[in-house]
């Protein structure tokens, strides 16, 4: 029971952070949308479709970022059995799934007019699809086990096995020939994006990052509340089982 002190402190901290991250998310998103859709130039080759980049790249970045959180949480679950760690992993996974899905769909909607295909099975697209299924599998494992600590450990193992996929996604465009172009933002010799096109990208990246922290904290609070609710129900049910006629809550 002693660890209940820890989540309580965490919730207090979250309640202090959330009033900052929520308005920051909304504000950055509004500025980002203005910059991306209105105040930035069209590309010399791709025309206005370059605007899809301003949400596609941040979505893909967040998909990887969330996975790193899930994997780090899994590591912490397996090694230190930290109870907040599996809560964090469970909370981050659906956000990662959403961003991975968005990266796939926005990429598809960008690929059709530019490449001429909605989808191709090159190494980059395929490895991101694998990431999508890793998130799904991770969440399915959480749902499949009755016992919470067993679920946490099984999910953590999957998360750590799947970590192999992260460098594959990142470097697939360099290691193999792909239809997808190589990195334009996170590259050794600096971004290959004209300075006039960087502000919308950077602001959107920041907006998505703050969005993640906001929703992540909400989801952790939700998970902790579910654990507390379970403990309360269990405590409430145990003595009542003595008189079966009584209605269950």
């Amino acid at each position: 029971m002693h660890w209940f002190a820890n989540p309580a402190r965490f919730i207090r901290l979250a309640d202090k952070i959330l009033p900052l991250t929520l308005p920051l998310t909304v504000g950055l998103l509004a500025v980002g949308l203005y910059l991306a859709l209105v105040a930035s130039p069209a590309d010399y080759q791709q025309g206005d479709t370059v605007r899809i980049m301003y949400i596609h790249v941040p979505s893909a970045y967040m998909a990887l970022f969330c996975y790193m959180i899930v994997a780090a949480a899994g590591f912490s679950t397996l090694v230190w059995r930290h109870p907040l760690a599996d809560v964090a992993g469970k909370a981050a996974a659906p956000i990662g799934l959403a961003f991975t899905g968005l990266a796939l769909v926005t990429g598809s909607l960008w690929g059709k007019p530019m490449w001429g295909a909605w989808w191709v099975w090159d190494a980059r697209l395929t490895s991101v699809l694998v990431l999508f299924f890793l998130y799904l599998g991770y969440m399915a494992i959480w749902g499949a086990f009755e016992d919470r600590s067993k679920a946490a450990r099984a999910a953590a193992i999957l998360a750590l096995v799947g970590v192999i996929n992260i460098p594959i996604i990142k470097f697939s465009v360099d290691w193999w020939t792909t239809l997808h172009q190589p990195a334009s933002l996170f590259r050794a010799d600096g971004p290959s994006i004209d300075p006039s096109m960087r502000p919308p990208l950077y602001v959107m990246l920041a907006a998505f990052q703050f969005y993640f922290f906001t929703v992540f904290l909400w989801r952790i609070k939700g998970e902790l509340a579910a654990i507390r609710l379970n403990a309360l129900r269990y405590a409430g049910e145990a003595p009542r089982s003595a008189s079966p006629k009584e209605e269950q809550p």
Partner: protein
Amino acid sequence: MTALRGQKAWTRKRRRFWLTVLALLTLALAAFLIFRALDEQLLYFRLPSDVADEAPEPGRAFRLGGLVETESLVRLPDGMSVRFSVSDGENALMVHYTGILPDLFREGQGIIADGRLDENGLFIADRVLAKHDETYMPKEVYDAIKERGHPDGATPSGKTP
């Protein structure tokens, strides 16, 4: 006995930590070996030089990638078909394609074509995809760079690896 006491310093958590790290390293090694073995299959397309080295037999499907050579594009009299040469700087291959080309298709552009060689060594494409590079800039910037006479300053589109 003293050795055992030293062992005791290895708490369960520390042992789990190193076991997990070891397991991850093993996994990484396994993945590395698997992907090394699969390397060929993971290539999405082949360059004209690869085809020159080892031409797939006629009729066998593969993907060809490279730059559309400037002034090689010919529209055939049927109005639907085009012929162009795809090059990687060293070797080139003639491609025949009937159908709608993607918006980004132009001479100098990187493309990937699905298709097969015919008996005469002509590549018959069923589908042509445009490959764009990782450079993004407004048209004005591109024109300015071109005017200043830095043809390589503005990376030509679709620089294939």
